[in-house]
């Protein structure tokens, strides 16, 4: 699992590549730190190369959302595949995020 953080057009973009499962979640959680101080920036979670997300991954995304909302920022999920979209739909979280 790889992540990469980049600021693009005033948005905070986090790229995910690989499988976001329970095993890698603690490491990814630390890698999401740059998204915490997001005042004045929207966040894009770019999942174009994300192959799989587990409950632990969903919890990380929800943590990003909760923190961003408190700071007045929006969170967009970009480029998810059909399987991951179905995970969001069947858990009811599809209504919580904005998708690009």
């Amino acid at each position, binding site marked *: 699992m790889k992540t990469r953080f980049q600021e693009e057009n005033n948005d905070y973009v986090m790229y995910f590549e690989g499988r976001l499962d329970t095993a890698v979640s603690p490491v990814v959680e630390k890698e999401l730190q740059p998204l915490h101080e997001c005042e004045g920036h929207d966040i894009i979670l770019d999942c174009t190369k994300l192959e799989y997300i587990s409950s632990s991954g969903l919890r990380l995304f929800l943590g990003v959302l909760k923190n961003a909302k408190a700071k007045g920022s929006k969170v967009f999920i970009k480029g998810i595949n059909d399987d991951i*979209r*179905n995970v969001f*739909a*069947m*858990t*009811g979280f599809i*209504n919580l995020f904005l998708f690009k």
Partner: protein
Amino acid sequence: MIPLLNQHCEDLLEQFRQKRGLLQRMEQVVADYLHTILSQQGIPIVGIEHRIKEEESLARKLELKGAKYQTSNDITDLLGIRIITFYTNDVDKVAAIVKHEFRIDWDNSVDKRKMHQLNSFGYNSLHYICRLPKTIIDDPAAPELNTIRFELQMRTALQHVWSSIEHDIGYKGVVHLPSEYKRQFSRLAGMLELIDDEFSRLRTKMAEYSRQVQILVASGQLDEVPLNLKTFYSYLELRPFDRLNGRIAAVNQAEIFPTSLVPFLPVLEDMGFETLGDIERFIAEDSDDAYQLAVAGLAVTDLDIIAENIGLQSLCFIHVLKNGGGLPALIRILDILNGKRESNQAIAQNIIKQASLLACFTKGSQ
């Protein structure tokens, strides 16, 4: 500019200068205390204004009627506080609190609202002359804090607007106003009094409506409660989807993540539900199938976190499918919830695929 005053008035002015520090301290104590107590009592206010009288303003007052004051302690508006409320009946509530909290000098307090003839309108405000009791401040080094009087005015926002404009125009005018204009002012005061009363009446009616809805919801007479934002909020307090959510969560021993269900109100309205009774029947009739639909997707995964909207979402999906709405009806729900997106079609198709395996849809085809 400060006018030339006689010695008696100059003495009064000097006394005022000497006690300005005390007045400033009182000003802060009273303002802070009022903010706290009104907030604790839950009375919404537009604001609290306060001021120490300007020296020039006091000098002009003394120039006119300085002889009636023996000492500066006889002047009761050196410190003035004004509480501005939204509603007329809140003026009375604030007055009751003020009476309870401060020592009132009744001989000098006046209810301007009661001073008008039945057929006249004008300045409406309640003025109390008060002293700070020792329960609020007790400083042996400054006992005057409990003896100096101050003026506390209470009025509504509309009364405040009227009197501010009247003060502005009335005091600026160098010429005597013809009675025609005075009459226009009076008419406006009457109109604002009417509007104030209407706002209060509206608030009372809305509070009564809320109470009735809560009683109907609590007593289960839900067919009499129309479905709208206010009633839906009251209904959600009964946590009507908890049982279904709990059943769904139990399949994977999942955590239920708190989410708002209010975004589903337009979906429910779009589905033709008109009363909370309709929602109650919808839950009763479709819960088992909604459970099956949710579980069909989740049971084959190890996902152990679900959103609190999962039950209601599944109910909506199953309801439109059972009523023959098919793919377009599912897309319509998703469009309302998520906004129109191409991906809604793929999600809807997946739901149809999962639903096609449920008993309620396979029975007919077998």
